[in-house]
């Protein structure tokens, strides 16, 4: 096998997004812990990255130095990453059902030492963009045309280090760095606008010297378009402010529970069945 960026049709990607959502529900319900709602908001972007022609990868050789990189800085959303990697052929979907179990490499947050294909060990919020800056600098120094994508949570934007990284990426005009802010509007204890409101992200990041786009990140078409535009920007870093809904895809089920944030808890078997039926 060689490095390859898989590009499915939009219909195929819509079906893939449904698969990812089902895997996320199944994994976290089997684990009886985890962050399904935080994972679900990011499904369209992650589908676009893995199946929309953006990440050149080789599951047979995950360490290929010429690969593109995806750093999941909001590490608690790792079920979406495991789901995408499984669909991309890094391992079977069945294996991911060992999520969070003793002995399983499918840890509660990404751990690169235990899983080839994971680009950064995250879980302490705020570090992924800096790691991405370092990767982008190193790849550029070697003359590689690889891109580095980093997904950050909107609550995570409260970490000062993210803004340090934004400034550094602009200093080095890292055209091979693309940040995605999964702005799902919630963090652990409530709405992001109530906890620490840092919106509007694009208006704040652009003056650093970044290319910015703000999209409905749960619209696959918009996600694909934004990723293509961002990849075409080569003289400055690029950010996609991906406005999403936490738990997107199973919102009626969450509404039923009275908790639209549904942070850091799995669905019960019963709710999971409803959610899977809703996804269809």
């Amino acid at each position: 096998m060689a490095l390859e960026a898989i590009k499915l049709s939009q219909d195929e990607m819509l079906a893939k997004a449904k698969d990812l959502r089902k895997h996320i529900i199944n994994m976290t319900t089997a684990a009886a812990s985890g962050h399904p709602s935080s994972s679900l908001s990011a499904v369209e972007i992650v589908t676009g990255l893995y199946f929309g022609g953006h990440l050149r990868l080789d599951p047979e050789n995950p360490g290929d130095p010429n690969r593109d990189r995806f750093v999941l800085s909001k590490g608690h959303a790792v079920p979406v990453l495991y789901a995408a990697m499984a669909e991309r052929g890094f391992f079977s979907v069945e294996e991911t059902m060992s999520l969070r179990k003793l002995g399983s490499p499918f840890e509660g947050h990404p751990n690169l030492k235990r899983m080839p294909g994971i680009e950064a060990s995250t879980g302490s919020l705020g570090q992924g963009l800096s790691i991405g800056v370092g990767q982008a600098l190193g790849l550029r120094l070697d003359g590689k045309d690889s891109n580095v994508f980093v997904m950050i949570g909107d609550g995570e934007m409260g970490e000062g280090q993210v803004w340090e990284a934004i400034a550094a990426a602009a200093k080095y005009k890292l055209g091979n760095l693309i940040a995605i802010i999964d702005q799902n509007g919630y963090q652990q204890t409530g709405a992001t606008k109530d906890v620490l409101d840092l919106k509007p992200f694009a208006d704040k990041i652009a003056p650093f010297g970044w290319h910015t786009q703000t999209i409905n990140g749960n619209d696959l078409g918009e996600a694909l378009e934004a990723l293509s535009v961002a990849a075409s920007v080569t003289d400055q870093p690029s950010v996609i402010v991906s406005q999403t809904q936490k738990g997107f895809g199973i919102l009626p089920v969450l509404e039923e529970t009275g908790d639209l944030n549904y942070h850091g808890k799995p669905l019960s078997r019963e709710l999971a069945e409803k959610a899977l039926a809703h996804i269809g």
Partner: protein
Amino acid sequence: MAIGELSGYQMGQATRDAFGDALAALGDEFPALVTVDGDVGNSTRTEPFALKYPERGFNVGIAESNMVSVAGGLAGAGKIPVVASFACFLLNNAFDQIRMSVAFPNQNVKLVGTHAGISIGEDGPSQMGIEDVALACSMPGVAVMVPADAVTAKKATRAMVEHQGPTYLRLGRPNVPALYDDSVDFQIGKSITLKEGSDATIIANGLMVSIAADAAKILSDEGINVRVIDMHTVKPIDREAVVSAAKETGCIVVAEEHLHHGGLGSAVAQVVSEEHPVPMGYVNVGDCYAESGDPMGLLEKYGLTAEKIASTVKAVKAR
């Protein structure tokens, strides 16, 4: 009297200066070597490397958290990043970044903390790295080195670059006595016996090795023949040398320019208590923050002197 004078050593380069020279000299041999700085490269001495290889020197500004994680990312892209700042800003400010972006993923990042200890002098306690060894040693897989002079600082610089995995190199600001010539064998985890002796052992690192040598002279004038071990690697510690010292000399005093808790003293005590318990004593900064002042005056006031080591040896020996 200058440090090392009593034991006959000439003053040499500061360990940070030796590191800076050595790093710049390694650039061609190690094309993957890069530096990441928090805007103190002219103090940490990464500057000569960054000037020689401008495309490989990254100054990310006064932002230590970002600096360390950027180094983690560079390592992920196959580089050998040397990330340097004052020991306190590197270890204390960016501790979680070292944990999550370097130690936990076992990235090949070379942490270098300068201005360690209280001998930085006038800038005062906010700039003094005195918890750094404890912090660095607390993280699994990080090799921690504290060279005593210019020659071993140069050799430690090469050793850390050749080592696979994260390392922490602790360096000082002031000039220190030249203890060794180029023939000295420096290996990570293998101590150097500066002076043989059988009545007691002083185990020291960094600046305190020279001061321990002076203490050995004071003691030998009183008929006490002490062994002096340069424990330049705190982790992994040279267990064999510690055990031999305990067995052959019967007591050990540990001298370091660090807080009492978690440094070389703790590391030696763990080995001694596990392998061959003997009386031990400690000469260090204690459990306090120091103050501004001239370096020699500070070392005197906080008890980091040859006289203090000598009296501690005698007290421990008498137990």
